[in-house]
């Protein structure tokens, strides 16, 4: 099966007053049709920058994609002109943002906003067809009485409803790839579950490939087929969701999985396990392995040589001392 999106050795550099650094440093991943890749990691590890790089929406300055290839359906997105890129955004690659409360324009009705990408990309549709399609999209994302809701303004909707509208906007042109950047972070737990169910259902129906960015491992386990764990701008572990959850190799992945709180009835109260230390500043990284100063399995080589992504226990891990099955 050919991947619909293949990112090869992508490096995105940011220049700030404190110096320049790679927010995304030499990462590669593939996304297949109808499948979901989860990008997991702590805040600031480069998840969002990776996805914005794919869309070429990195704010520049300060950011610039320095090297790498982003092959989408056989074309390298980094070589396209701004106009060609605009015809792909919203049309072939859709994006759902983190903050449904602020991602909608407050002065337009949600109908206008769902129609927007259709108007931009499907020039052959008549005004009436566009309106019908937009109403269908509102219905598809599970908003009741779509003909009426079409004329609502964002402030009249709840957070969950707004996220549904964002999903409708992203999917209105039936994109081949959907990038969901923490789509449920701003929502409460019950709504999160609904939105994830919806995304999963629509993905199966429309056979869309998806990149799901999250720091919630529960979400990953439920939604993703493959997972890439990121740490300080690098992918440290990459495999199928079963491999990652059943036999994490990298101490960081293991630490993340251990940090998930368990609520078992009858068990004695245990303290929540955490990973000691903090994420290093990208401007001032430790030598060798970036995780070395927080790692419990550190050996001499770790602070001398940066580990490469190699196969350990059936999938790719960047570690000198893979920890094996838990």
């Amino acid at each position: 099966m050919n991947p619909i999106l293949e990112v090869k050795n992508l490096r995105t550099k940011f220049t700030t007053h404190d110096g320049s650094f790679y927010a995304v440093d030499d990462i590669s991943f593939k996304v297949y049709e109808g499948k979901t890749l989860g990008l997991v990691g702590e805040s600031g590890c480069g998840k969002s920058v990776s996805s914005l790089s794919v869309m070429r929406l990195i704010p520049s300055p300060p950011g610039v994609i320095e090297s790498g290839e982003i092959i989408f359906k056989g074309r390298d997105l980094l070589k396209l002109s701004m106009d060609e890129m605009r015809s792909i955004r919203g049309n072939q690659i859709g994006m759902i943002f983190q903050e449904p409360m602020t991602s909608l324009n407050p002065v337009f009705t949600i109908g206008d906003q769902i129609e927007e990408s259709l108007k931009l990309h499907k020039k052959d549709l008549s005004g009436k067809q566009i309106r019908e399609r937009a109403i269908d999209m509102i219905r598809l994302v599970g908003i009741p009485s779509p003909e009426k809701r079409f004329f609502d303004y964002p402030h009249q909707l709840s957070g969950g409803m707004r996220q549904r509208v964002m999903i409708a906007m992203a999917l209105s042109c039936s994109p081949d790839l959907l990038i969901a950047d923490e789509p449920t972070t701003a929502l409460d737990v019950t709504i999160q579950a609904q939105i994830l169910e919806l995304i999963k259902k629509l993905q199966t129906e429309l056979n869309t490939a998806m990149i799901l960015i999250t720091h919630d491992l529960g979400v990953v386990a439920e939604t993703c087929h493959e997972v890439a764990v990121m740490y300080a701008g690098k992918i440290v572990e990459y495999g199928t969701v079963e491999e990652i959850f059943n036999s994490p190799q990298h101490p960081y992945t293991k630490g993340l999985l251990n940090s998930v709180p368990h609520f078992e009835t009858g068990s004695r109260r245990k303290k929540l396990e955490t990973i000691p230390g903090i994420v290093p500043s990208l401007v001032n990284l430790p030598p060798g392995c970036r995780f070395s100063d927080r790692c419990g399995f550190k050996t001499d080589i770790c602070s001398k040589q940066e580990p490469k992504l190699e196969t350990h226990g059936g999938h790719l891990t960047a570690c000198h001392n893979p920890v094996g099955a838990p």
Partner: protein
Amino acid sequence: MTVATATMNQISTQTQMPKSLWADAISRIKRDKLALTCGAIIIFYALLALLASLGLIAADYAQTNPQGFSPPSPDHWFGTDMFGRDVFMRTVHGTRIALSIGLVTSLIAIPIGVCLGAIAGYFGGKVDDLIVWFYTTVDSIPDLLKIIALSYVMGRGILSVYVAIGFTTWVGLCRLIRAEFMKHKSREYVLAANALGASHTRRMFVHILPNVFHIILINFSLRFIIGIKTEVILSYLGLGVEPGQPSWGIMIDDAKQELAQGVWWQLAAATGAMFFIVLSFNIFADALRDALDPKLRNK
């Protein structure tokens, strides 16, 4: 699908449509009696100006009479000036000039201010530096000096008044729009529009501009006040419209000599006409800002 549109029509007639910002603003102004009165006065002036320019009322405003300076009487409500011209009719025609100055200068100044402000705020960086440098330079020369200089260059006449006021009074709006665009360009809805494939121009003028449009509207209503007052000052200084024209500035200018002879009606008519329209615009602009600015909505 025809079913969908049919139900849509049905629903839109059955239920109340959600209120847009503008519909909400209009209903707020409707509740404000004072603002409504002022709006009515503005419309009344505009009607007078329209009818006068069509020659339907006060048509013989230029009719002279050998016997000048007749005091107010049933024949001449506000008396006559030194050439025996009816002051009331001249005042009515003055409305035409005053409002046309507000309108035409707005048509010049608002596009300049909005475009430069939008470009500066949206793109930032070097473009912003250049535009800020440009408008601070323009703004460092007092407005009146610029207007006087332009009027001297272009010669006396209503056209030079339009151009002089129009090209000198855009800086304030430009600043406001620049600041708003800087604020809005990093909002997520603009990023979301970008992710949908909207171009720079589309993001600037279709997505952000409607969010700051209330500022332009308020500025538009305030500009009439500036236009009317500046015209009066220019005419008084002898730089405004041609002397024969019935503008309020010219009338006040004429009146400075007449006052010594006890002729007060020309001054009173022009000042009174100006007072009511400026006051109405002021109150109306205030009400408009209250109605459009959600942060002030606690009345």
